């Protein structure tokens, strides 16, 4: 469905020196630094996948997704959507993609929401009956018809994002790109958005590619994640497999009756505060039951709980390296 081959993009930054002297020097003899925003990225995405891009700010996620959606021109490499190069055949390829970019809206601020949809209907040459049917389908998931007569400038952020999501799906694109879609949304809007993504993926087989800093988005939506840092692909794969590989441990939280906590040879005590101690152990090394048995032989235990390694552990490990 989507093939990304050896994608690279550099930015040239002018080297700046302090003060007026530095400014004049920069004017007469400019020195440029090349920043490799994305370096030799290759991957494939199959039809119907929901793929989450994660990485710290400035890692190259947005640059990648913007090259994939035809906004930025790659310096090297290519993006094929349905076998067609988006840089070379932009107008044809974008007919099959929808884009929602975080804080930016494609809706007309001054007019009612329906007017923006009407314009998109003409731009994408959507037939009236098709348009009505798509709108019905989308309305069933996101109840947007009630907003059609509301001017966009009077909408809450949640309503506007709803409007933008529906706008991006009116022409029934095969691929939907979302750049930080849940940013700034309240819990219920976030929930509605996630439901929308899951449903269009299930009902219309839409391939979804999203970047996010919200781990909840990833956990609830993405089977597959791609971790990018410094413009390089760090991890690509199934979420639970990556968790198993990068963070193959669990943490046992034990509450004792007093403040002394015994060590255990098969695990590492990561935290010890008051009556509570945290023991981190490798999943393939031992089991929680064994540690509890060993510890309780030495000291009496009041309570235990187990923390699974999660996506935030992955991110810590991946971002740290």
């Amino acid at each position, binding site marked *: 469905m989507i093939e990304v081959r050896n994608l690279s993009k550099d*930015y040239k930054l002018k080297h700046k020196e302090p003060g007026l002297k530095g400014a004049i020097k920069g004017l007469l003899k400019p020195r440029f630094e090349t920043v490799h925003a994305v370096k030799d990225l290759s991957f494939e995405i199959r039809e119907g996948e929901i793929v989450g891009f994660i990485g710290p700010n*400035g890692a190259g996620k*947005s640059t990648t997704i*913007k090259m994939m*959606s*035809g*906004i*930025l*021109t790659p310096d090297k490499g290519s993006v094929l959507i349905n076998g067609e190069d988006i840089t070379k055949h*932009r*107008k*044809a390829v*974008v*007919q099959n*993609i929808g*884009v929602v*970019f*975080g*804080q*930016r809206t*494609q809706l*007309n601020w*001054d*007019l009612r929401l329906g*007017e923006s949809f*009407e*314009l998109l209907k*003409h*731009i*994408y*040459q959507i037939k009236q009956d098709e348009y009505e049917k798509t709108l019905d389908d989308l309305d069933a998931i996101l109840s947007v018809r009630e907003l059609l007569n509301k*001017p966009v400038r009077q909408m809450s952020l949640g309503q506007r994002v709803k409007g933008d999501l529906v706008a991006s799906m009116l022409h029934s694109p095969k691929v939907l790109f979302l*750049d*930080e879609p849940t940013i700034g949304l309240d819990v219920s809007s976030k929930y509605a958005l996630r439901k929308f993504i899951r449903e269009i993926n299930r009902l219309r087989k839409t391939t979804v590619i999203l970047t996010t800093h919200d781990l909840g988005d990833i956990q609830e939506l993405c089977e597959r994640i791609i971790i990018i840092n410094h413009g390089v692909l760090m991890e690509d794969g199934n979420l639970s497999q990556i968790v198993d590989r990068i963070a193959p441990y669990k943490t046992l939280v034990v509450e004792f009756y007093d403040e002394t906590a015994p060590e255990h040879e098969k695990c590492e005590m990561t935290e010890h505060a008051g009556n509570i101690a945290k023991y981190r152990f490798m999943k393939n090394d031992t089991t929680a039951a064994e540690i509890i048995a060993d510890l309780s032989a030495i000291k009496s235990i009041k309570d235990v709980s187990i923390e699974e390694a999660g996506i935030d552990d992955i991110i810590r490990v991946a971002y740290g390296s």
Partner: protein
Amino acid sequence: MIKAFRELGHYLDVTLQVIKMAVMTIIEYPANIAGWMISNPLQFIMGFAIIKFVVESFGEVGGWNYGQLAFLYGLSVISHALSMIFFVQGWFMGYYVIEGEFDRYLTRPLGVLYQFFFTNINIFGITDLIPGILVFVYGCVKCAVHVTPLFVLQVIVTLIGATLIRGGIYIFLGSTSFHTRSATDFGQYTQEIMDKTTMYPISMYPESLQFILTYLIPIGWVSFYPVSSMLGIENNIYNGMLLPFVTLLVGIVMMCLAGGYFTLGLAKYESAGN
């Protein structure tokens, strides 16, 4: 061929919808209309009043009499108004570049330059048309022109060419933002220069300046040469009834060059970080 017609139909269809929406936006803010209706025409009526004063004091300007100047001024304001309707966004291209507003155009299946200008079409530009037409008709009467089919054709061709030349200049200036990454608004300066060079005969300027305005920055073709031709006023450089058609040709060439320069810039477009 059929494909080209279908595409043209698509663009016309979108254009109609865009105009409909522009009119709706104007109706949404009725107070704005009143403001524009007063200030815009006034600006040009005042401008013309100044010419009248100058001519009455000095007799003529650059060998042109009062009626001929009115004709020139009117035609120039009309093409200015047309360029305001279709191409004024070029003045603000820098903001669109810096703010990443081209993202939206790039992800839609239409030409980027088309969307940039037409989804922001400035219907208010019509308010400039009114003084333009008034002064132009006044000039026609003063010069006692014979309205022949050739004359009508010359006027139409000149207006199209002149609007394209102006639009091309706006696109050129705006497209520099892709390279400089700054949102400099050239509008005011452009407007100053264009006013001074299109609303008066360029024959009043030194020869070196006339050379620049004829060959380097072809503003002379916006009004001076075609009007000289229509009114039969001799100048030192070009004469003849075909000059309005040269204006059209210059306009088309300018547009093509500007479009090429824009496309080069667009490949360097960096969007905006978020």
